[in-house]
């Protein structure tokens, strides 16, 4: 009995001993020179910090071994400010959160208040919101493609995408007078009706972009170097994405068709015919391509919305200037350019909200950054941050 045990033990020992004596590459190539990881401070004023991300990189040669991000450089206490303003006074602040797609913020906030106060939005206003929001999504995705191209080193596509985006901004400017922070959505509707000739110009632009976006796809996404740089870099699986709470294009790039416009339909989206674009790999390349494909889907929605646009009032009747919703709580979310953007408002029946909680997709998406970018090359780390597309106005709020 004891003998058998002994032999067993000795056999196990032997295997261990063999393992220890086996040629160990890492041990053999132990450097004789003292080496040290380079600690690099990235941002908050770095040209590709996407606003104000500060991150500490540990660099082993060109490979980033550790990333510690620090956020909060753009914190402006919006949730607290909301508690000190009336419901309609807080509206302009929402534009300043995700300033690249500010329309969605205003819409999500207005939807929540409307839910809370039980306001029925006229149909024309809903259509105008959809038109505006889809234009905003295109503008935001164009900005994304422009910055990604620049970070990959291609400087010219930046101007092409900005040229297209500028045309959208012209349309916005004619509609509501602003180019970045629109304050277009009102509680119960929208602030302005379409000026004369606006729809024709919008349609002309849609037809133009339908053609040019294919050219840009060929120029940027189809390029050999661009594919080589982006494919297979910093991927994450669908499970990990769900664990992190990632939404929007990064989640859809892993193959999960989660789009609030379809998953939890709001406004007039159920009447629209469009596809939720998904990709399979969840790597940098897919995260870029999905934006370009979503632009095409948005164009499709825009065409339908413009066709179906009904006549009628643009703002609900009888919405008080200072609304006092009944005590209670409401949550509403929209699919912003970056993902699931939700507003949660608690009302105590007074003129001001008791609490406003904002759930920004950038914040959730950004948390994947250290995990997926560690072990990548420095150049790819910058690109990975870019493809997650955080806007720091929304991360910090």
């Amino acid at each position, binding site marked *: 009995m004891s003998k058998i045990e002994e032999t067993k033990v000795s056999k196990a020992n032997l295997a261990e001993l063999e393992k220890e004596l086996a040629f160990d590459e890492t041990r053999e190539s132990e450097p004789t020179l003292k080496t040290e990881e380079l600690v*690099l401070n990235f941002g908050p004023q770095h*040209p590709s910090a996407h606003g104000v991300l500060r991150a500490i990189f540990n660099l082993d040669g*060109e490979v980033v071994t550790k990333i510690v991000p620090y956020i909060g450089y753009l914190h402006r206490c919006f949730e607290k400010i909301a508690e000190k303003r009336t419901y309609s006074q807080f509206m302009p602040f929402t534009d300043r959160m995700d300033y690249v797609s500010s329309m969605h913020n205003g819409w999500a906030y207005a939807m929540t208040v409307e839910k809370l106060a039980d306001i029925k939005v006229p149909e024309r206003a809903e259509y105008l919101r959809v038109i505006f929001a889809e234009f905003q999504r295109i503008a935001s995705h164009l900005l994304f493609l422009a910055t990604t*191209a620049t970070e990959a080193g*291609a400087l*010219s596509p930046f101007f092409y995408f900005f040229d297209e985006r500028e045309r959208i901004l012209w349309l916005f400017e004619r509609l509501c007078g602003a180019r970045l922070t629109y304050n277009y959505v009102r509680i119960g509707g929208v602030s302005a009706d379409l000026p004369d000739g606006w729809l024709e110009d919008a349609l002309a632009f849609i037809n133009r972009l339908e053609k040019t976006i294919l050219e840009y796809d060929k120029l940027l996404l189809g390029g050999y170097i661009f594919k*080589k*740089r982006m494919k297979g870099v910093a991927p994450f699986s669908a499970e990990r994405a769900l664990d992190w709470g990632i939404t929007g294009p990064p989640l859809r790039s892993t193959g999960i068709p989660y789009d609030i416009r379809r998953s939890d339909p709001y406004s007039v989206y159920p009447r629209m015919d469009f596809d939720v674009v998904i990709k399979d790999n969840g790597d940098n390349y897919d995260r870029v391509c999905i934006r370009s494909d979503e632009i095409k889907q948005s164009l499709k929605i825009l065409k339908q919305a413009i066709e179906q646009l009904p006549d009628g009032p643009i703002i609900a009747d009888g919405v008080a200037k200072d609304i006092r919703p009944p005590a209670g709580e409401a949550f509403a979310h929209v699919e912003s350019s970056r993902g699931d953007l939700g507003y949660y408002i608690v009302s105590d029946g007074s003129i001001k909200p008791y609490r406003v909680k904002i759930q920004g997709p950038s914040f959730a998406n950004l948390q994947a950054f250290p995990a997926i970018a560690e072990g990548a*090359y420095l150049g*790819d780390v910058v690109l990975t941050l870019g493809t997650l597309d955080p806007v720091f106005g929304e991360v910090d709020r």
Partner: protein
Amino acid sequence: MLSSSSLLQFASHNGMPIWVLNTSIALIMSLVVFALCGLGVLILVYMERKVAADMQLRWGPMHVGWHGVLQLIADSVKLLSKEDIFPRNADRWIFRLAPVLVFLPAFIGLMVMPIGPHLVVQDLNVGLLYVLAVPAIGVAGVIMAGFGSYNKYAILGSLRSAAQMVSYEVPRALSILGVVMIAGSAKLTAIVGTQHAWYIFLQPIGFVVFLVSTLAETNRVPFDLPETESELVNGYHTEYSGTRFLFFLFGEYIALIAGSALAVVLFLGGWHGPGPEFLAPVWFLIKMFAIIYLAMWIRWTLPRFRIDQVMDLGWKVLLPLALLNVLITGLIMVL
């Protein structure tokens, strides 16, 4: 040119020692080349901005002078009159010497470039070796700029630059071997002289390898890793401003001029072209600017490689290609 007999006669007539004559001629010639270089860089920067603007739906500089032709003069004056910012912990001498060391080798490399049949400052027998070796010293300046700046981004940029320049020096030198084998000389004027059929047609692989590695040597897109704005802020010259920055700019563009001129000399028939002989420099310049335009076209179209891909391309693709080219050339010559 130095042994021009009339000049010698003039010197002996006036009792001037021969070394004074040689030195003064060398000085005058380098001043002439320097002035031409300055002019060339001005033209190149203007050209780059206009080409970039053309490709990016813009106008480029339009306000200073006719179509902005004087913009570069205004920019130079601005850079020259800027405050000389010196990082607190920078290594004083290395920091100061680096721009000069980047600029000078590129500039000296031009001295053997034959623009016309007799238009060459110094026609060395080993001109080709000289053209390859001397501008390569510039990498020392880049490394010094990185280390002297006391800035991590600058160090990373300079290390990238060193790795890249050293790697691409090898395929670049090998790609030229085929030309030397055919021409039977390393003298640049001799190479052009024997080039009745352009060597680009005899050495297509060599030309491609040479062009790609020249782009890498001069840090142009898609190999602009040492100064990637999105990653390293501005690479090795992050900390430089004013006049010193101007020197880096000079060095960069002169390297581009030198690289394109060498491509013309080796592969595009140098000064050869139809018409009388006095048109030779014109033909040379036209070909050179065509190559430069190609480099700018590439720069404003393509994204950049990652550092490991740059190394892979250099060692695993271009080097075997260059060796293959030498082998094929040798086989054809023997057979």
